[in-house]
C-alpha cells in the first residue's frame, strides 16, 4: 500500500471512531487534501483546504486527521499546526489563517514602546510638555521611568519613584498609548 492510500485508510479509521464523523469519504478527501496541499501549495494551501471543507463537522474531522498526520512528514506537521478558530456552526464562520492572523485569540494589551522611542517623542514635542525625559532602568530590578519637569518621576508600572501627584489627562493618554500603567 502506498503512502497516500495508507494515509486515507488511517484517516477513515480515525474519523469513523470520532463522534462527529460524517463519513469516511469526505474525511478521506480532507485527509488527502492535507497530505497533498503542502506539497502543491505550501502551508498556506493547507489552510485553504480546511476553509474549503463543508461545515463545522468536517473541520473537526480535518483537525483530528491532521493530528494523526504529524508523524507522517514535516509538511503534514505544518498542516497540523495551523490555527483553526471556529466561532460558529456554519462554514462561513470558520477562520483559518495558518497561524498568521494576529487578530485571532484574546486581545493583548498595547505593546509598550521602548524608552528610546518615547524619548524621541519627547524631543520632537510629541509628548506632553510637562515631561522632561524617559529613562531606561539602570539596574535589573528597577523600572523604566518617566521624569516630569516638576521633579517627580513615575515608574513604568505606575508606581512613583520620587514625588507623586495626579496626572493630567494628556499625560495619562500619552503614557497609556505607549503601553505604560497609570498610578492606582
Amino acid at each position, binding site marked *: 500500500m502506498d503512502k497516500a492510500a495508507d494515509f486515507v485508510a488511517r484517516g477513515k479509521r480515525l474519523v469513523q471512531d470520532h463522534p462527529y464523523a460524517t463519513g469516511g469519504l469526505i474525511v478521506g478527501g480532507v485527509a488527502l487534501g492535507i497530505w497533498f496541499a503542502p506539497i502543491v501549495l505550501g502551508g498556506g494551501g493547507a489552510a485553504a483546504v480546511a476553509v474549503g471543507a463543508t461545515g463545522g463537522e468536517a473541520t473537526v474531522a480535518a483537525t483530528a486527521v491532521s493530528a494523526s498526520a504529524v508523524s507522517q512528514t514535516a509538511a503534514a506537521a505544518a498542516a497540523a499546526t495551523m490555527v483553526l478558530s471556529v466561532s460558529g456552526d456554519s462554514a462561513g464562520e470558520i477562520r483559518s489563517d495558518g497561524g498568521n492572523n494576529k487578530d485571532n485569540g484574546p486581545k493583548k494589551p498595547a505593546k509598550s514602546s521602548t*524608552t528610546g522611542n518615547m524619548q524621541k517623542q519627547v524631543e520632537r514635542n510629541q509628548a506632553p510638555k510637562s515631561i522632561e525625559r524617559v529613562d531606561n532602568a539602570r539596574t*535589573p530590578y528597577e523600572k523604566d521611568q518617566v521624569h516630569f519637569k516638576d521633579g517627580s518621576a513615575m515608574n513604568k508600572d505606575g508606581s512613583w519613584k520620587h514625588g507623586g501627584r495626579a496626572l493630567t489627562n494628556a499625560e495619562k493618554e500619552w503614557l497609556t498609548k505607549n503601553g505604560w500603567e497609570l498610578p492606582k
Partner: protein
Amino acid sequence: MSHEDAVHSWMTAISQDGGVGRLDDLHIDRIDHAWKTRELWIAGGLEAFRIATALRDKNKLPAAVALAFSLVAGDKPLGVDFKNTTELQTRFDWSPPSLYLLPPGEKPWTFGAPKGVPPIEITEQSVDSSILGIGLTVRCHLIEFKQADSGEFKRTLFLIS
C-alpha cells in the same frame, strides 16, 4: 544651594522615606543645572560621587554609594566596548548619570530582586577604573541585562564605593 547641600538633602530624604528601597536616585543635573550638558557628565558625575562618599564617611552612614552612567541599549550584550573617556562618552544614552545609595554590601545589579521571580539575564564585568582616571578604591562594573518586558539589553556603568 551648594552641591554638598543638594547631595546631603537627597541622602537624608531617601534614608528616611524608603527611597533607598525604591532605588530613588539623584541625577546630577538636579545638583547643578550646568551638569545637564553632556560634555560635563563624566566630570560632574565624578564630583557628585566624591561629595556623596565624603558625606557618607563624615556622617558614618552605613551605606554604599554608587554612580550610574546609562549607556545606549542594544539587541545583544556588547561587553566593555570603550577604552577611554572619549569612547565612553559616545556610549552614553540621553540621561545624565545619577547617584544611588544602597544598604552596605548590596550590589546595584542584585538589589531589589523579588523573591520567587525568575532571575533576569544579567552579565557583569569589572572595568579598569583608570579609564575614568580614578583610584583603585572605587569598584567599576559594567552590567548588561534584559528585563522581561523589554527586547533590549540595557547597559549601565557603575562606580561603587
